[in-house]
């Protein structure tokens, strides 16, 4: 099939996702362009992680279409999506706790061939995160939260993804770490990887994202460039206020 190098990298069209009777995503549309950092904002339980799971194929939408690189993927197995170039940084890291850091990185490269390319990718991860290299033989369950997040991002990079889906990369990290992680996300993006990122830390997210969507109880209620959203009074009040309390839905 011809590959469209022009259209968006990822697109949701009128996607509806359920857990049993619970209707979580309601006619959701997203368009993620090649090379962008797009942020998904929203309060608790509005369907942000469900969006990520729908992209990865861990849950399937009941209606609507998800296309990646111009082709429908909503019926594909998760492993096939990974092979096509989508990798996750999961909510709460979700490293394999009793495997070493190195083994976790190997798992990230599960769909890749071993050899020169693997070594190159490993070097890239190690140079982005010298700390990960130092800790490569440590069992990952014993790493600090910040170190785990670095491994989680490194693990995603090992898949040579074109799109990384990050679910709350700043969760549970100290402010210093948050800045580091966001710097590295920008760096990864500059090296050519598209990023779709769920964040509760709206100020940080909007500082590096090109565009953002705001989700509320499963519906996209607002979208635009990061600059527009930073100036939007509703966003200022709900997400950028001093307390940064997410909007009650």
């Amino acid at each position, binding site marked *: 099939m011809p590959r469209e190098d022009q259209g968006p990298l990822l697109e949701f069209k009128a996607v509806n996702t359920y857990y049993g009777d619970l209707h979580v995503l309601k006619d959701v549309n997203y368009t993620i362009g090649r090379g962008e950092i797009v942020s998904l904002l929203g309060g608790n339980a509005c369907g942000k992680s469900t969006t990520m799971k729908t992209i*990865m194929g*861990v849950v399937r939408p009941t209606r609507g279409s998800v296309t990646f690189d111009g082709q429908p993927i909503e019926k594909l*197995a*998760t*492993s096939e999506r*990974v*092979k096509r170039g989508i*990798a*996750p940084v*999961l909510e709460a890291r*979700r*490293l*394999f*706790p*009793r*495997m070493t850091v190195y*083994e976790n990185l*190997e*798992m*990230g490269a*599960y*769909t890749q061939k071993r050899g020169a390319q693997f070594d190159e990718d490993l070097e890239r991860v190690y140079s982005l995160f010298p700390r990960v290299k130092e800790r490569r033989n440590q069992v990952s369950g014993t790493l600090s939260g910040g170190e785990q997040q670095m491994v989680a991002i490194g*693990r995603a990079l090992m*898949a040579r993804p074109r799109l990384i889906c990050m679910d709350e990369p700043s969760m549970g990290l100290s402010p210093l770490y948050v800045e580091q992680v966001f710097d590295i996300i920008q760096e990864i993006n500059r090296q050519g990887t598209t990023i779709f990122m769920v964040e509760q830390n709206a100020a940080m997210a909007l500082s590096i994202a090109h565009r953002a969507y705001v989700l509320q109880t499963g519906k996209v209620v607002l979208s635009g460039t990061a600059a527009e959203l930073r100036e939007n009074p509703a966003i200022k009040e709900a997400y950028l206020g001093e307390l940064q309390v997410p909007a009650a839905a």
Partner: protein
Amino acid sequence: MTAVDVYLQQAINGVSLGAMYALLALGFTLVYGILELINFAHFNVFMVGSFVGLGMLELLGVMPNDPALTGLTLVGVLLLTFAVTMVFSGALGVLIERVALRPLRNIRGPASMITTIGVSYVLFNIVLLGFGADAKNFPSPLPQVQFAIGGAVLRLREILIWVISIGLMGGLTYFVQFTKMGKAMRATAQDPDAARMMGVEVDRVIITAFFLGSALAGAGGLMFGLYYNITSYVIGFQAGLRAFTAAVLGGIGNVPGAMLGGIIIGLVEAFGSYWISAAWADVIIFSILVLVLVFKPAGLLGRIAPNKS
């Protein structure tokens, strides 16, 4: 025989029994590690393995009460019989997973476990109806070579069991630690959703776990026949229950734990039978199980499983 000789003899017997239990326990642990399912069909995969081994030996012209084989013939017959038995048993495990368990995969509750009990009885009855209720003499192709260690006796059949068990367990450990599929198995056991999102095809991991576990159980069943020179449709339940105990004792889901648990159960059985009586062996084994679980609920090498989200 001095007391030391007696202990040594029981240790030899116990480790031999334990090696068989360990092979069987590994199958429980591999499947439990990934699916959190106790596979009771495994009991009778062991039993079927013993009958497959019997059939294969007879096919090769090695009949019960025939004189022992020697040299290359012996090695060839054993290798071929083990290989065929393991492949057949492994395939049986895969078939059970595919036909009886996969359709129930996403159903919560005890449905899958109950199904494995059903499958276990189906295997039991097929062998009973097909081969009759009487115990079958098992060929003994091994020469009656034995070594005296002090007053204790080490027979060739024990050495065979040890060598093959160590080989198989070493092979499995290597597989799980170092191969790509082995790592995928560990990752899946630790976090199945995350493993899937790394690109792991979880169905293939599950099939591999069933194949390997069942192949090891088949090897155990064949060893049982070679060790006792007898087999019967009933051997699955007793050996299976002891091996299951071994898996829980070592920490179910934990590969080295299953090996350790198997050896301990074998030794307990041997020494318990000697000091008290064989009739009490199960009482002792299960009492130990209860005690371990009270004081160390996750088993000797196990961890309390974190809640999977």
